[in-house]
């Protein structure tokens, strides 16, 4: 596997690359067409930036508007090495934290570039009018996030993703108005068209009319997000899916580290079988909230009745250096460990407390101190403290109350880990190109920057880095050699064949006319994945899971029941296609997890742990990216990209 990483010292690679990559002159850009799938942070920023450069862009999203993409739901913030707080941050520190947080399974060169452009992202967003939180002096405010010891996270209350996406969306709509981008909403990409070894377009389905459309492009960018919904229950949006990436995979793009899944520690627990999705409570809550369970197993007292000395603040106990701010994978496993051992709380016993009482009191005292009044009563302190907490986290607390009916200002929140993000994705080289020429993957859809575990507030950073600051350079290096390629008419046999295969598949699905609903099959897949390829994995479970998924696939293709017709708005048919792809992906994830006989980041193999239950890596055997090539039904070939660490010396991650 050649990642095409530029030569030279780490600090200079990106600068050198930009200085030497090929350029396309403006007159030629007008003739080059780029297709972008997905309009989240990566897709919208790429579409806007490439449109600004003068390329002819077509952007696609399955939602009714590009502004709906799931980046919108990101809450806590976006990292950038600005060092506005004078607390010792730098490009190197952000790079180092990300590599370490990823448990030494990410590529140095990519991560360093990410850290380098991080500061530009904040500048760009502020210029677009993104209303980040500010201090009274009018300058930008920062908060801390898990896995770091500096304050480098920029935020807009608990709606940072929304504000960043609206910024990118507005930039995209501006290009639509200028005629540089043509937007196709309620469209889903269902096939990649490859001619003479190069990506030349896509087949898309209009989800309102059901019509299949052929679109030519000199390059195709997949910005289609992650695949957490393979678990059925996740914090992803209902429509988030792997389909675009999976079609690319089956067309020849290797899939990198599919088993690397992030289970987020602070989500609202499952309330029953009806549950359709899980809701995240931002990691920023761990800044001030304290996580605990009772010291006694099966303690059924109300949280407020449990005295301080009978509470186990297990993160502070196990990891005194980072406390409640350990990285996500560590926090999630610690919660699972306590619940499995019988210390869980709530009716399901699959939850731990996230408690704000101490923070409310602390902030209240600070407020009282500001007034110079030593005689403030406890009630008054609590009242003032609640105001401060409301200012910082109000919308998150409101959301918790709407869902659970409980008031988190009074009662500790109940939280439990849930599937949140997928570090794995399409394998890409330094230029973000997959193994198929002209086919790129950006943002969560690629595997590149987060290794085996992503740090909080880094997904927004990566999506925007790829779209605003990386792809505008790297795509030119490819398209410079395409200026002589005239648009290929979509009557070309390759387009015809691709459309036929999509249409055949849709007809096959509709004609099964079985008994089981798409939803019920998806739920079963999710359960297999969560039980056997979730927070902890072992050989036996993974082998069972593979067999069960293969069986499920047979059932799906012989017994699925899809109502309605093809040529109409039919959400069940859309979902059926996506679930069919999830089933195949699930098998590959288990295969990858089975192959990787070590614990690293979000991937915890029970066979590989230290005496005190911490993850145990095996750098001698597994310091590589697993890139899987699709060879046919249930058949993949593993390729390895060895990871070389020139600058950082991999060590055992310790947050103690």
């Amino acid at each position: 596997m050649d990642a095409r990483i530029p030569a030279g010292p780490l600090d200079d690679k990106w600068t050198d690359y930009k200085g030497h990559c090929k350029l396309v002159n403006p007159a030629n850009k007008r003739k080059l067409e780029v297709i972008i799938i997905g309009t989240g942070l990566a897709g919208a920023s790429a579409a806007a930036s490439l449109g600004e450069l003068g390329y002819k862009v077509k952007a696609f999203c399955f939602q009714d508007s590009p502004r709906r993409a799931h980046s919108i739901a990101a809450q806590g913030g976006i990292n950038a090495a600005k060092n506005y707080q004078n607390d010792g941050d730098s490009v190197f520190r952000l790079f180092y934290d990300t590599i370490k947080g990823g448990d030494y399974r990410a590529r140095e060169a990519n991560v360093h570039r990410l850290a380098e452009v991080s500061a530009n992202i904040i500048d760009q967003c502020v210029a677009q009018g993104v209303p980040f939180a500010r201090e009274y002096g009018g300058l930008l405010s920062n908060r801390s996030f898990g896995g770091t010891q500096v304050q480098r996270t920029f935020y807009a209350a608990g709606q940072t993703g929304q504000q960043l996406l609206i910024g990118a969306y507005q930039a995209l709509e501006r290009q639509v108005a200028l005629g540089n981008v043509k937007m196709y909403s309620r469209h889903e990409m269902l096939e990649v068209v490859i001619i003479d070894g190069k990506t030349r377009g896509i087949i898309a389905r209009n989800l309102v009319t059901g019509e299949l459309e052929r679109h030519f492009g000199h390059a195709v960018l997949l910005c289609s997000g992650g695949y957490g919904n393979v678990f059925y229950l996740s914090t992803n949006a209902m429509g988030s899916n792997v389909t675009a990436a999976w079609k690319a995979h089956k067309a020849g793009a290797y899939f990198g580290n599919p088993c690397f899944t992030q289970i987020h520690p602070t989500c609202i627990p499952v309330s029953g079988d009806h549950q359709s999705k899980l809701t995240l409570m931002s990691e920023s809550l761990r800044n001030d909230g304290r996580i605990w369970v009772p010291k006694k197993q099966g303690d059924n007292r109300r949280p407020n009745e449990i005295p301080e000395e009978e509470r186990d603040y297990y993160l502070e106990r196990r990891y005194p250096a980072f406390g409640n701010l350990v990285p996500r994978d560590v926090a999630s496993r610690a919660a699972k460990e306590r619940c499995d051992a019988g210390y869980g709380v709530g009716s399901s016993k699959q939850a731990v407390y996230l408690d704000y009482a101490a923070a409310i009191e602390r902030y209240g005292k600070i407020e009282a101190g500001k007034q110079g009044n030593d005689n403030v009563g406890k009630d008054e302190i609590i009242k003032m403290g609640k105001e401060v907490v409301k200012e910082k986290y109000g919308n998150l607390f409101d959301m918790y109350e709407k869902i659970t009916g409980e008031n988190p200002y009074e009662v500790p929140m109940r939280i439990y880990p849930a599937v949140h993000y997928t570090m794995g994705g399409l394998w890409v080289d330094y230029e973000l190109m997959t193994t198929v020429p002209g086919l790129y993957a950006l943002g969560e859809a690629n595997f590149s920057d987060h290794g085996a575990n992503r740090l909080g507030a880094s997904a927004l950073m990566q999506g925007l880095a790829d779209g605003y600051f990386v792809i505008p350079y790297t795509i030119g290096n490819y398209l410079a050699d395409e200026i002589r390629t005239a648009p290929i008419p979509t009557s070309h046999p390759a387009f015809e064949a691709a459309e036929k295969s999509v249409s055949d598949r849709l007809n096959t699905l509709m004609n099964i006319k079985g008994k089981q609903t798409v939803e019920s099959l998806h739920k079963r897949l999710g359960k297999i994945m969560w039980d056997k390829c979730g927070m902890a994995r072992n050989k036996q479970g993974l082998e069972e899971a593979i067999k069960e998924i293969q069986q499920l696939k047979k059932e799906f293709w012989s017994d699925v029941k899809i109502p309605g017709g093809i040529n109409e708005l039919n959400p069940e048919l859309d979902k059926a296609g996506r679930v069919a792809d999830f089933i195949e992906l699930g098998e590959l994830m288990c295969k990858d997890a089975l192959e990787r006989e070590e614990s690293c980041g979000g991937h915890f193999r029970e066979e590989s742990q230290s005496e005190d239950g911490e993850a145990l890596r095996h750098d001698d055997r597994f310091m590589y990216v697993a890139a899987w090539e699709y060879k046919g039904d249930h058949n993949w070939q593993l390729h390895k990209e060895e990871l070389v660490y020139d600058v950082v010396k991999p060590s055992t991650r310790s947050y103690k």
Partner: protein
Amino acid sequence: MEHYNMNLTLKVWRQKNQSDRGQFETYKVSNISSEMSFLEMFDVLNEELIQEGKDPIAFDHDCREGICGMCSMYIDGKPHGPWQENTTCQLHMRAFKDGDTITVEPWRANAFPVLKDLVTDRTAFDRIIQAGGFISVNTGNAVDANALPIEKAKADDAFAAAACIGCGACVAACKNSSALLFVGAKVAHLGLLPQGEPERKERVLNMVAQMDKEGFGACTSTGACEATCPKGISISNINRLNKEYLVASLVSEK
């Protein structure tokens, strides 16, 4: 939180496609848990309809955490249902009791044609943004983010306006189907910030012109939009828009 189960009657708008006339259909659902979300109740109903060989009810939804703005049901005469500052996806069944009859319709507005059942076409909002809902700054043009301090109060107001999720509830709630709260929020968000200043006049004129072109009605200041907005966008944004529009019309050189 105590929870309970309930049986409900649903009257739901069914419409095959944009040209179909449409009508209400009545459905019974039973054993609905008070812990379910409103959309999960629809999931249950749809699973039953599919099993009975009927066409499930099409409705828009995506994030199910109240931020994407895609869900859009008009529930018992109110966009997003009975709770204050809430989206349909965050409405939970404990808002209802056993035996209730619930009426569910799509957004009703000429500018939001029904595509199927409860699904409407809201691309008119995208076109209004295209008309001027942005700050013209190409990637790479930006100066250092802290080069331009912004008064905290102004930044906070801009954020409050920018919290709009573009769901269209304001239009659905308005008897005139006016989109002025949506447009006002964007004009305020960008107009309050120094970065948005250079395009301020053109922005408000162009966005209002596009809004009229899309067929949204006029504002008669009844305040239904503010009362129903899931993100609590203040009607003062409309005042600001009116002021900006007036000034821009007077001084515009075009």
